[in-house]
């Protein structure tokens, strides 16, 4: 369970997060949505302890004060960053094993248990054929699975993901998210997920928190949060929301009349 109480983040004189409180129950998946600059990434970084904050962050009943980082926090909170650093020459196995850092003793080597965790995860995420491959030679989808494997190797009850699928195509994004969902159910992982794509957010998360200018402005089940009114008000976007088989589908709508405007000469459909 993740409990955030009155979390505030400032950068100089500017307030980035204004007293956000939220609770994500154990095994639940919560998505942070909102326009660019609303504070999704800042909130993820605050919870992970990468920036200073006021307020409380509690994971599985344990308080993690601002600035108190280290092994205990890494055992409770795993983090998948927006743009992970992947040293190009490092081998996949070594990278995944770095996730076990918080489980090592200060001077000790990794144990058989560490290697077993890494190996099981790499099999689970279908990375076992890539284990000796340098990170620089992975495709985007493979790299994202490797980063996920490293985060899951921490065996933390909370997984914080900041736009893990932003650079992936639809198919790869879907397979990564399905994996996260399976692992969430298997291990009752609590997931906090910052995401741009509202339709994807609605398909995977139990709760959406809509952030705007550092506040949580709307919070609740996806089909209630994602109304055309809310989306217009906070994203400034014109949309229609359909009810698809796995949740609400947000489709952009062009201004009246623009659909019929001339788009230049069209080609016939050809399929090869």
């Amino acid at each position, binding site marked *: 369970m993740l409990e955030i109480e009155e979390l505030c983040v400032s950068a100089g004189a500017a307030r980035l997060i204004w007293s956000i409180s939220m609770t994500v129950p154990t095994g639940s998946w919560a998505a942070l949505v909102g326009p660019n600059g609303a504070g999704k990434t800042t909130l993820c970084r605050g919870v992970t302890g990468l920036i200073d904050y006021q307020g409380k962050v509690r994971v599985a009943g344990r308080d993690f004060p601002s600035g108190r*980082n280290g092994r205990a926090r890494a055992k409770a909170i795993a983090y998948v*960053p927006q743009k992970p650093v992947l040293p190009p020459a490092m081998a996949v196995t070594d990278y995944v094993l770095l996730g076990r850092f918080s489980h090592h003793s200060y001077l000790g080597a990794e144990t058989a248990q560490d290697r077993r965790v890494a190996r099981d995860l790499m099999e689970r995420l279908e990375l076992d054929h890539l284990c000796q491959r340098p990170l620089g030679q992975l495709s985007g989808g493979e790299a994202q699975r490797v980063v996920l494997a490293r985060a899951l190797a921490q065996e933390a009850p909370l997984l914080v993901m900041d736009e893990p699928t932003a650079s992936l195509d639809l198919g790869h994004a879907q397979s990564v998210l399905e994996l996260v969902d399976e692992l969430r159910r298997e291990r009752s992982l609590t997931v906090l997920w910052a995401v741009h794509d509202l339709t994807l957010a609605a398909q995977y998360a139990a709760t959406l928190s809509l952030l705007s200018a550092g506040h949580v402005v709307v919070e609740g089940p996806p089909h209630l949060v994602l109304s055309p009114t809310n989306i217009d008000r906070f994203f400034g976007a014109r949309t229609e929301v359909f009810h698809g088989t796995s949740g609400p589908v947000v489709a952009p709508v062009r201004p009246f009349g623009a659909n019929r405007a001339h788009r230049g000469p069209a080609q016939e459909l050809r399929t090869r």
Partner: protein
Amino acid sequence: MDARAGKLAPTRLTFWQVAAGCAFLAASAVASLMVGPFPLAPGTVIDVLFGWLPWPHLHAASQLSTAIVWQIRAPRVALAILVGAMLAAAGASYQGVFSNALADPYLLGIAAGAGLGATVAFVYGGSILGAAAGSGGGFGLMPLAAFAGAVVAVMATFALSRSRRGPRTPAALVLSGVAVAAFLTAVQSFLQEQHASFGMTALYSWLLGSVAAQGWGPVLSVLPYAGASAIVLLACRRLLDAMSLGDDEATALGVHPRRARLIVIAAATLGTAAAVSASGLIGFVGIIVPHSIRLLAGPSYRRIVPLSLLYGAGFLVLADLLARSALSPQEVPIGVVTAITGAPFFLVVMRQSGKFA
């Protein structure tokens, strides 16, 4: 266990890598003990080295060769081993902790700081402590003064690179290091010029680098610092791997990047200062050795740090051998040898790899 486990094996330091490093070091040490104005056969050297063991002796080592090996050549080889190991491991650690392939005790201004500290001790220490310390003059103060200078230099370099606005790029650190080194070298040259009449030949030759030890004294004075530094750096090698992901992700993995950086920099600086105070300014070791190991054994610091200690030691023993035998009986400063062999080699490494800069 099974083939699967082997395939998923992490990068670890293997027995054979350590054995090859030890063999290289042993071979270069024996070669260095053999060569000199009075050449010795390999068997004699080995016999002298292990003569105290209750083995059957193949050659009865003469008193003369025993004296040559233990009193003249061994201290020099031992000092080269300590200095080479220290400079290479410190270079590797600076590269890891600054996430910067260009980091090196020389480029970061640390050696220049140690050099200035030692010069100050040499110039002024003699007048302050000369009466108390006897004829040794400032040389007794040199390790401490060198360490103080090195600490000032590394702090100045680090602070300068951090004070720069905008993103923290590897180039910012190196540029700050170059500026700090230039400034400290200028101050040092000034001191040198001002005290030119002071009998500075000893200082000049010290600045060009030399492991010509006068007996076991310098070796014993460097050993505790080098040993402590090496132990800390070896313990931190896993930490350096985690820090290669950058501060954010290292923090998320449970590392305290600032604390880790402080520990590693302190240990590497102590090692560098001890090496510089005993041997003067010997360049390129901290960049050639770790980069060569990186090319051969991969990017994991679990391998780079221990192998840098072994190969750095062997490399400097060979460089010293070349320095004193190339133009025998004249001696070329060892810093000149490492620069002449190191700079072109370094360019080849950079061209071949391309991914480290």
